[in-house]
């Protein structure tokens, strides 16, 4: 890649983004750069300057003005003040930034904010509040499924997604469902208890 300098902080790529997309034709990448739903070769190129992006988060649409390279995680944290999802590894290794993307758990650090346009994002803040905890959040509190709490939002979201798909997971399914998340204090057995507790209440 050409060197990025102060005089030329965003040098042209050897391939234009448009040619790149035409050549490779990656659906997922293209979807992020164009209007939702459209996957045409005439995709609009966004950036490098900040652009307004309408993000539907926790049921409401907010427009953030960010450079297209900004990740969904940083858009949520630094531009929408939703700091529940945590920035920990920045490469999808720990799950602390897990949010729901059209109901699927994803690492918000691995997704660009532009890719979230037109999709429903739910963060841990959207699941419940301290006064009105969701069933999973209430189970985490009861079972003391946390210590320092930095991994907790990610585990709460991942557990919520797991139970939405599989309301009665067995122990192996719980482990597999949460395998993308890490806790350093060592609260896994309590987290498993919390998932079982929340599952049990669903009747």
């Amino acid at each position, binding site marked *: 890649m050409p060197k990025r300098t102060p005089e030329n902080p965003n040098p042209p790529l050897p391939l234009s983004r448009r040619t790149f997309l035409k050549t490779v034709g990656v659906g997922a990448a293209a979807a992020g750069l164009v209007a939702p739903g459209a996957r045409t070769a005439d995709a609009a190129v966004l950036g490098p300057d900040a652009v307004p992006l309408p993000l539907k988060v926790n049921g409401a649409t907010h427009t953030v003005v960010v450079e297209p390279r900004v990740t969904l995680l940083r858009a949520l944290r630094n531009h929408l003040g939703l700091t529940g999802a945590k920035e920990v590894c920045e490469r999808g290794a720990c799950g602390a930034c897990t949010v729901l993307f059209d109901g699927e758990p994803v690492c918000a650090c691995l997704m660009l904010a532009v890719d979230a346009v037109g999709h429903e994002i739910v963060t841990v803040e959207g699941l419940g509040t*301290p006064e009105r905890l969701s069933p999973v959040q209430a189970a985490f509190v009861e079972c003391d499924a946390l210590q320092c709490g930095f991994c907790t939002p990610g585990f709460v979201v991942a557990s919520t997604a797991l139970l939405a798909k599989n309301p009665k997971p067995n122990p192996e399914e719980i482990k597999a469902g949460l395998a993308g998340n890490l806790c350093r204090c060592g609260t896994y057995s309590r987290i498993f208890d919390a998932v079982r507790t929340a599952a049990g209440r669903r009747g």
Partner: protein
Amino acid sequence: MAEQQDQAFQVKVGPAESPLTLTVHPAAGDLRPWDNDSRLRTVKGRHQRLEAPQKVTGSAKYTYDVSLPGMLWAKMVRAPIPAGRILRIDTSGAERLSGVKAVWTTDAKLVRFAGQDIAAVAAVSQEIAEDAARLVEVQVEATPFVTDLEEAMTPKAPLVYAEGQPPALAKAPRQGNVVGPLPPPTLGGARGGTRGDVEKGLAEAATIHEATYRLAVHTHAVLETHGVVAHWEGDRLTAYASTQGVFMVRAALAEAFDLDRKKVRVISEHMGGGFGSKLYPSAVGSAFAIVACRLARQTGAPVKLMLDRHEEQICTGNAPGAQMTVRIGATADGTLTAIHHRAYTEGGIGQSARTGGPAGSMYPECPNVKIEEHDVFTNAGPTCALRAPGHPQGAFALECAMDELAHRLGIDPLEFRRKNDAHPFRKAYYDVGAKAIGWHRRNRVPGATPGPKKRGIGMAHGNWYVLFREAVAVEVRVHRDGSVELFHGAQDLGTGIRTALAAVAAEELGLRPADITVHVGDTQYPPGGTSGGSTTTNSSAPAARLAAHQARTRLAALVAPLLKAKPEELDFVGGRIAVTAEPTRTVSFREAAQKMPGEVIVCVADRKKQFEAVRQDLAATQFAEVEVDVETGVIRVLKMVGVHNCGTPINLLTAENQLVGGQIQGASWALYEHRTLDRNLGTMVNPNLEAYKILGPADMFEAVPILTEGTNAGNNTSATGMAEPVFVPTLAAIANAVFNATGVRLRELPMTPDRVLAALAAAGKGGSP
């Protein structure tokens, strides 16, 4: 004023099965300590963490989450190679980038590890700060380096510090990169240490075992990276810091900027993990907090500087790797005659941790003990405290050696330890732990299970010390509306100190912990200690009890006339104040509060001095069951039982959680974690969380936490620490279980599949190298 006389109380303490009567002498004004006979209503219960609702909803604000108006983002630049002379740091490119507001460069002339502070930038966004950091050009003239422990010990190894130029270390002989033998440590009063004559003891032994045990460097890998948000208002500085010691950070920042400490405020409301790495003003291998404060002063704007994951792995400390040779001997009936522990631990560019603690103090009946500890410098990030510094490593060597010697003597390893162990708590642990793991199921002949998946059971001991800080105070406020607030400066690392303090205060006031709003982690509150070495509960809880007791005394005096009783005849229970002899004569706590003359009763209490206790050390015993696949070399931990005592467990729910957490971190060290440095480049190969593997949900085992009954005295709550001992025995317990499963001894951690297969092949038991 004349010194007030200590009090004297007789208390029933020690293990519930074998209690003893102890006369203790608390300071004047202190309370009779809770003992085995105390009938506690709230303490020893299972209380939900007070801050849990905030943490599970993402509304708890950590340092990483702090955002202030006009805040800039800072990013550091680190040395790309492990050793050399800094020729040039060119920040001009970064400074010309739009959005960059300030830069900082180091005064250092030499690079000693890849990751050292070089420069920093402050910019209007996190992304621009990252761009600017990439534009800083650093020219370092490379010099020879050494990053491998055993290579660093050789005479021809490049010197990390030139002769006459080491950092201030213990007065100890130095040869090349090796410093030692080190003088005995000063921390902890119960370390035993060198005694008798080891050679004589070994000569008296019927059987001698000698082996060298090794383990890798481990990083703390805390989830919230180190960081700070610095905010100046005139000459007043507020720092939001992810730290284990807000007062320590305050002192360091005040010194760095030549400020009165009262002008510096440090806040750590919630903190995302420390494990010893956040016991520094910044971090052991970086001065980022000072840099952030400088950039903030220079720009007149708040500055946020959070390390990224790569930085976190290379410059914020680690637990030393070690090479430990143990010589140990016993008579034919299994009586220990000698323990010799000689260790070389890898300090990186810093002072290492001492691994001789377990050998020096675990078996005090052993008459002949020799501890020889050495630090070895390497061109790598400096070591710092990590949960019982040196003790998991030392216990791994000692307790594997004990297991090996028991095997050679033909004695059950548990019986071998029982014969040599005089610790009153630990003696009570053997049977309860053996029953919980099913000790009788272990292989009589190690490796005897048929088939490729071999199961085995092992156990090990660990130890730590009763440590505490006395310059600690707690404030309790009872408001006219009956609400109660508690203020204490110490920070909550995730151990649940908020809830523990609330439980102790609630016990005195007859309330529930949730009735008390606890404020911690702020230098504006009464002083709390730095949280390290398992000190916070036993330092802070006694002061909380005293402050709450004072509030109780004041309230009792207010309502006694109303209840037509004397204040001392009143009991505080279930949110009411009642006449003890006539429990139907009551007023509610809220009604009592409304009798106060003003708006609030404020009670502040200092922690009184530590007094006599059953033990000055903390015992730990853990059992592990593993399954080893001898075809793939993969080890799975199936079950762990931890038997521990923490004096009065203030909150069983959080204490058991912490106990299991120690086992998990220990299992993670035993099987997975390994900081890997590139031999040719001297940089870390796995500075992340996917290749630096820590134990995850899929690896989780059945964990059984057992907190045995029994108070320890020493302070008015009779609580001791908890965080360190739960981590100490785990490595050896798992290694011993692997031996029981396979009949093959692995003496190097982590026990990765390649090492398992190589060991099996070497022993002619399958596997392939």
